[in-house]
């Protein structure tokens, strides 16, 4: 029993030391408040997801190319039928009516290329023999348009005989460069930059701990400015990231060549800035995202002195990354909203958001400005990190401000 008590007492001694060593560190505060970050970012993420869903819903339309009179009748029928849908997500997309031109078939096909709405199904031709074109996932919308055509015919001939109505439904590929494809490419860009950085940027967090543990930091700090040490650490790990991305990029490119042509076509990138510029911008934003997140994590990690503290940083770091993704996605879903502007301006989400914008907006100058803005923040993070490190770890401060010197006498 005595032995057991002794063992327990010794275990408590070690537990107490570990507890104190863990809790009484600044890093623990980050760990402790990680759920607050999680909550904030979840809220942003929720807004993002809702925005994605809303934007898809907002922009989706079913289109009827009809003369005025039947168009009004169809709109009335649509209003009646919609009451049958209790849940908004079950309801078909909003109905748009358009006056037929000389070539309604061409007009219908063109509806799928519009930027101001995303056509899921388009009806044209005589109402008793309507033609319905529909895009991917537009089958139900096409059925609904055919039903509306029948209701319109019935409503226009009250008491009369109703001809047999046969709608010809044809699935059509969404043309390249449509708004939908661009948004898909934007989401791909945001996710791509995010995924590439998810594991790679967080690798930087523990690199300064190595120097602190084996005391090399003193040699480095005496020989080169700390800013160079920080930048060197960041670039070294970026080299590792590029090697990783290059390796897996080459493999995925090879695998891509084996995909069936239809699938490859569906997955093809459609970017507003053009494919070569999009690829260049994607790589640039991957680099910027790495440098920004990496420098931020490097700065935070440099304050940690033990592997335990480094480990505790993993949670807040993951949450921050998820938060940046959510913010960028929210911005991509609503390109003209305040959240898009916020995502593009906030330094840590800016590369993700701007990668998405490269897919949806053709102008290039915002990217030049964004990259300059992001580089400025990399510089700020590194400079700030070096200062914090010098002050906190090397215990060096600049000369005291004059008012403190005066007060000290």
């Amino acid at each position, binding site marked *: 029993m005595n032995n057991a008590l002794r063992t327990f007492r010794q275990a408590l001694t070690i537990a107490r030391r570990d507890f104190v060593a863990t809790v009484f560190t600044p890093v623990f505060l980050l760990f402790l408040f990680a759920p607050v970050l999680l909550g904030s970012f979840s809220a942003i993420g929720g807004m993002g997801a809702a925005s994605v869903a809303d934007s898809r819903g907002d922009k989706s339309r079913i289109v009827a190319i009809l003369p005025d009179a039947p168009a009004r009748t169809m709109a009335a029928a649509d209003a009646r039928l919609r009451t049958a849908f209790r849940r908004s997500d079950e309801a078909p997309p909003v109905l748009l009516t358009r006056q037929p031109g000389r070539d309604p078939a061409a007009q219908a096909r063109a509806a799928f290329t519009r930027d101001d709405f995303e056509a899921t199904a388009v009806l044209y031709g005589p109402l008793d023999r309507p033609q319905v074109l529909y895009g991917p996932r537009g089958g139900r919308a096409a059925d609904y348009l055919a039903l509306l055509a029948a209701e319109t015919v019935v409503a226009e001939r009250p008491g009369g005989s109703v001809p047999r109505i046969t709608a010809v439904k044809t699935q059509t590929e969404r043309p390249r460069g449509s708004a939908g494809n661009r948004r898909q490419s934007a989401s791909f860009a945001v996710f791509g930059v995010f995924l590439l950085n998810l594991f790679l940027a967080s690798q930087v967090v523990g690199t300064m701990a190595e120097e602190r543990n*084996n*005391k*090399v930091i003193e040699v480095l*700090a*005496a020989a080169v400015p700390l800013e160079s040490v920080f930048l060197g650490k960041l670039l070294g790990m970026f080299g590792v990231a590029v090697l990783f991305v290059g390796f897996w990029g080459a493999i995925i490119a090879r695998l891509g060549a084996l995909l069936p042509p239809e699938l490859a076509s569906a997955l093809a990138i459609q970017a507003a800035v053009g494919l070569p510029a999009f690829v260049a911008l994607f790589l640039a934003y991957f680099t910027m995202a790495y440098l920004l997140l990496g420098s931020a994590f490097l700065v935070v990690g440099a304050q940690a002195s033990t592997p335990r503290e480094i480990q505790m940083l993993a949670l807040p770091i993951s949450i921050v990354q998820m938060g940046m993704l959510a913010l960028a996605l929210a911005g991509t879903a609503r390109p003209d909203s305040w959240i898009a502007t916020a995502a593009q301006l906030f330094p840590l989400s800016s590369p993700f958001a701007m990668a998405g914008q490269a897919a949806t907006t053709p102008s290039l100058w915002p990217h030049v400005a964004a990259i300059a803005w992001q580089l400025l923040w990399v510089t700020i993070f590194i400079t700030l990190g070096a200062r914090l490190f010098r002050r906190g770890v090397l215990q060096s*401060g600049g000369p*005291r401000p004059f008012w403190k010197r005066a007060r000290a006498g």
Partner: protein
Amino acid sequence: MADDLAVFAEHLVKRFGERRVVDGIDLAVPRGAIYGVLGPNGAGKTTTLRTLLGIIEPDEGRRSVLGHFSPREASDRVGYLPEERGLYPSMKARDAIAFMGALRGLDRRTGRARAAELMEAAGLGHAVDEKIKKLSKGMAQLVQLLGSVVHRPDLLVLDEPFSGLDPVNQEKLEALILAERDRGATVLFSTHIMAHAERVCDRLAIIAGGKRRFEGTVDEARGTLPSRVRYLPTRPDAGLADVLPHDAVPDGAGWRFQLPAEGIEGLLVTLIDRGYGIGGLSIERPGLHDAFVRIVGTAAATGDAA
């Protein structure tokens, strides 16, 4: 500030919290000299050196290194061995030395070639391609020392370079310090082991409690204490104490006392005249150790020391 100074510091102050770790230190290290910064543990030696090198910024005062008020501007011409030794454990010894040279602007190829030469000369030729983690602590320390001289610096700053080395390696280090001075470099090192300072230093400063307590040559330091006389009479007698100076104390069969300011000759004549004879006589100059203990002890006694 004179051009013939490699390091110059004027009223350096560094506080950690409210404690003045370096408290108004002045230093003037001549070019080409071996200069020791001596002091007890916690005297502020390391902080002084780190402040001089720009690793930490002073709160007050100014300093210059090789003529530059910003030590960074001279960093390629400076070699530094920190008190807390640090090397990358998985690096090979040769690469570690070349890496340290590269940090100071030496190209890697030259660095690697010089590293092999330096290791060979230091008797570490067999360990050129060994990883640091495979070396003994002393060997790793020597490797780091070689890393601090591989770029042939004009100023070599060594913080407690002798600690952790066995006597053989301590001797090698002394030889290396002298060789660096002969090459034309200035060597500034801190230590609390007086024997090394006594053997190699051209000038030294003794600091305690963050303040400079002494500055001068080794001889000048020793001169702060009078020489001591050890006298052995041929005829022991109780009355001898009345003839000897007041501070004389028995020491075995003889006596020990400070060398009188007027010299020893008059006392010897008296001793012979009174028949005590001279069985043995030696005049001992105080060592640096004694001077250090007195200087630091005085500082402690006045409540100034760390």
